């Protein structure tokens, strides 16, 4: 769920931009170093970024029949790791704002924080954590993608609650309201995205393990022997 252009009051928009900026700069430094050491990384990252954009524009089959979209943050974090995702996610969000009018320039910072920083880190942490507990890969991937999505929506609800506190019950009441809107609509979506990510990861492990090995920043989990 992208926060629309101009929806956040100016101070909030500026604050979220300031919070996201260090993460994106750190990520940009890392990516610049990667591209410097190996020039061909640039093409790989470009293809991955374009893929992430197209993935986010693919309509998901939805239970209610409404049209809904994947965030791709979980898959991105699994494939590239969260420190690269901060930059790639920012670029994808920028293109979504400019080419699709989803999100916006002033709310870019807030959207980057929820979708390109918190979502990927939660997904990556869960993937690593559950793998250390020897969970089957499919379970790990499902949990990572689904809860990464949920984390994103929770952060978005929190951002909206901080910006628009309820006149009677303050930020807490407002947070409950926004979570109340998101839960019924986004929870099924998160489950669908979790399942979808499992299908994608299984497909890639089966048919393109050679290519996967070329992703230097890829966690070894995916290329290691199957533990299904």
């Amino acid at each position, binding site marked *: 769920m992208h926060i629309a252009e101009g929806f956040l009051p100016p101070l909030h928009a500026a604050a979220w931009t300031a919070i996201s900026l260090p993460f994106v700069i750190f990520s940009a430094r890392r990516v610049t170093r990667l591209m410097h050491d190996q020039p061909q990384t640039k093409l790989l990252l470009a293809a991955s970024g374009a893929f992430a954009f197209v993935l986010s524009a693919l309509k998901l089959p939805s239970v209610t029949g409404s049209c809904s979209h994947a965030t791709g943050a979980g898959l991105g974090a699994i494939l590239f790791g969260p420190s690269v995702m901060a930059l790639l996610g920012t670029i994808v969000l920028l293109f979504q704002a400019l080419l699709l009018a989803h999100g916006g*320039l002033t709310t870019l910072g807030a959207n980057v924080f929820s979708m390109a920083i918190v979502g990927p880190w939660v997904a990556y942490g869960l993937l690593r954590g559950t793998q250390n507990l020897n969970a089957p890969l499919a379970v790990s991937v499902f949990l990572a993608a689904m809860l990464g999505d949920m984390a994103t929506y929770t952060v978005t609800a929190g951002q909206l609650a901080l910006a628009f506190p309820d006149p009677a019950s303050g930020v807490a009441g407002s947070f409950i309201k926004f979570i109340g809107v998101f839960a019924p609509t986004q929870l099924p979506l998160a489950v669908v995205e979790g399942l979808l990510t499992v299908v994608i990861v299984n497909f890639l492990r089966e048919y393109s393990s050679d290519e996967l090995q070329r992703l230097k920043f890829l966690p070894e989990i995916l290329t290691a022997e199957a533990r299904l």
Partner: protein
Amino acid sequence: MQAIDHYAWTNRWRNRHPLEKLLPALTLLLLTLVLPPLRIGPLALAGTTLATVGGAGIPLKTVLGVLAAPAAFLLAGIPFLAISLSFNDGFSLHFSPDGLQLALETSVRALAAVGCLSFLTLTTPMADLIPLVRRAGVPAGIIELILLIYRLIFVFAERALTGRQAQAARLGYSRFDRGLRSTGLLAGNLFQRALARARRLEIGLAARGYAGDLKVLQLEWPLSWPRLALAMTLVGLTGLASGWI
């Protein structure tokens, strides 16, 4: 997406220097955020629509289509700003006039802001805009990465569309579980092809002596100071006029 990009490359103001469009659009965007929304909002929306339709010659229908995109977000959010939740006596929901005022202000502000943004994206191709951010201190490598992504998005979008049609023709979306599987296979396939595409680009560029930067000719348009000054004056007048009403 295709529509926005199509008009960006073909509109009447395509050959103007991108700064002449970027600077006024961003200034107006800032003004709509800072000034009281109910005053500046309608003025800004009218101004940007006039410039987009009357000036750049983009059909009104397309502009409305772009403005409709965030409408879903507004529709979802607005009722919840107008309804207040209270814990005082147990748990109660009631309508709040202050909340309604806030909801109205927020939607007007968001629509006006989208108006500014859509003026910019409908009149200026991304390929013209992105090099401008180099002056803001973004490293050259990152800018190349962004431009490459811009190019590849359209290549992959076409493939995704073709793939989905092929799957749909084979009843790949006839049931929910099939749809889920088809989408997963499509995405996985797309990723595989993206990697293959990256590798082909790599080989092709290596054969041409690629050593880390892509050298491309950037079209340069002359910057017209009078036009820029006129646009900024109009934006400034819009800001001042909002104080009057």
